[in-house]
């Protein structure tokens, strides 16, 4: 970059945009015009309560817009509102991706949570019936709330977990794959894995169409803990109240501590989080989560 235009670009950034926005470099040259790319870093603070250390990490967002120049003149640039909207949608994208990644890292454990199991009991019953030889269509009519069961079955068929035959529902491809990898005596394990898979693959449908949101806080609390740890590059030791603070802040909630304690308690029982004075994580889940995040987030997020 030539000195004069570099100075002008820096002045423009300082005047027009908030902190963290910077000129990344030339994105396109088409004589006589040159485009410069805007990028941004956004700070995240993470406090490890055991080490009593504040870690300041930055999320990086790129391609926020272009500044067009001609010679040493700036001819156009995106408005601050446009740039901020792109950062905002970048944040949403990061959050959605990390939720997806955490879900695929913990779904088997989620199936062990009593509250989740209870609210999805009809699904569990269907899976059990299918696993034990198939669910006859004629039997389905005898179920109380048969219509609701039909909805669940159609949802499970859509996920390839069940398959419809002329007179009954049997195991679909995904179900068979899981079963193949395990012995018949691991009955509970097979069902748990399939059940977890239902939550993982069908999350959006469960939330939006079947109105089953009980699993949401467990995914979110896990996401907050593991994404903070991912940014820190290690499993964090957090005070309960600080994890609650991060949770409420990240999701714009006002969850009272009594509710939060109950989520935490269930997450501990399911082996997703641990507590020994501080809330800590599970190293296997962390490794799985981190490896997947590296692939998913590049180049948007650099921790």
């Amino acid at each position, binding site marked *: 970059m030539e000195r004069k235009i570099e100075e002008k670009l820096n002045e423009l*950034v*300082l*005047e027009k*945009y*908030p*902190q*963290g926005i*910077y000129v990344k470099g030339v994105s396109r040259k088409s004589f006589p015009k040159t485009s410069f790319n805007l990028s941004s*870093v*956004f*700070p*995240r*603070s993470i406090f490890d309560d055991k080490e*009593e*250390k*504040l*870690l*300041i*990490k*930055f999320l*990086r967002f790129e391609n926020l817009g272009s500044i067009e120049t001609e010679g040493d003149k700036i001819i156009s640039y995106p408005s*601050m509102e446009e740039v*901020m*909207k792109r*950062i*905002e949608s970048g*944040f949403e994208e990061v959050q959605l991706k990390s939720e997806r990644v955490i879900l695929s890292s913990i779904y088997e454990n989620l199936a062990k949570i009593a509250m989740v199991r209870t609210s999805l009991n009809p699904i569990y019953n269907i899976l059990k019936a299918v696993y034990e030889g198939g669910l006859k269509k004629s039997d389905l009519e005898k179920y109380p709330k048969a219509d609701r069961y039909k909805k669940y079955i159609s949802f499970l068929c859509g996920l390839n977990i069940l398959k419809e035959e002329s007179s009954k529902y049997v195991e679909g491809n995904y179900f068979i794959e899981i079963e193949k990898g395990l012995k018949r005596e691991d009955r509970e394990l097979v069902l748990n894995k399939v059940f977890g898979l239902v939550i993982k693959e069908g999350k959006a449908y469960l939330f939006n169409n079947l109105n089953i949101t009980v699993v949401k806080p467990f995914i979110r609390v896990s996401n907050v803990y593991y994404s903070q740890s991912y940014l820190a590059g290690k499993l964090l030791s957090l005070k309960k109240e600080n994890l609650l603070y991060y949770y409420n802040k990240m999701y714009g909630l006002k969850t009272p501590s009594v509710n939060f304690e109950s989520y935490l308690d269930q997450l501990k029982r399911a082996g997703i989080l641990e507590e020994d004075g501080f809330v800590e994580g599970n190293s296997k889940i962390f490794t799985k989560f981190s490896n997947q995040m590296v692939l998913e987030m590049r180049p948007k997020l*650099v*921790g």
Partner: protein
Amino acid sequence: MIYFNDLKQPLHQTELASCVPTCIKVILNHQFSLSLKEKQIKKWLGYTILGCVPHSIRNLSEKLKREGIELKEKIVKNEKELIDLIKNKHLPLVYFRANYLDGFSEEVEVDEDGNKYYHSVVLIGVDDEKEKFYIYDSLFSYGNVATLKIESVKVIMPYPKFISELEKTDNRVFWFERTKKKDRTIGEFENGKKD
């Protein structure tokens, strides 16, 4: 000789993007006993949707004039001008790159992208024999003390390092001075007498 301003109510910033309003709140309270809400300062500064910090605090200028306070700004390239400001009991606000703390503190660790992010701090004292500046950084918690005394300062920086950090943010220094005329009080403003 040491020149040091015992800083009244050294606040700990509430969130990462709040360094500027926190520093301004502390300065105005210390120098002019003017107690403003952080929310109000943010509004005047023009905070964006994500709570990002504007680069400049010039937006404050008009609002503070009503209180008889003038915002001053200067490009400073050597320590002498800063020392003079401190001797005159001013509290210069400066911007550093957020990773300036690397190697300065065991309590804070900033990743490398901190060199792309500005962070404001306040210069509160100088030791002209040891050639060091005393800095108030709201990233640190000073407990609930009424006054930040010299022995509790967390960042003490030699002149060359200070000037070098200042150069990275274009040598810009801001401070506040009392002017003679006071148009209208902030209290009046906040009680609904709009512009």
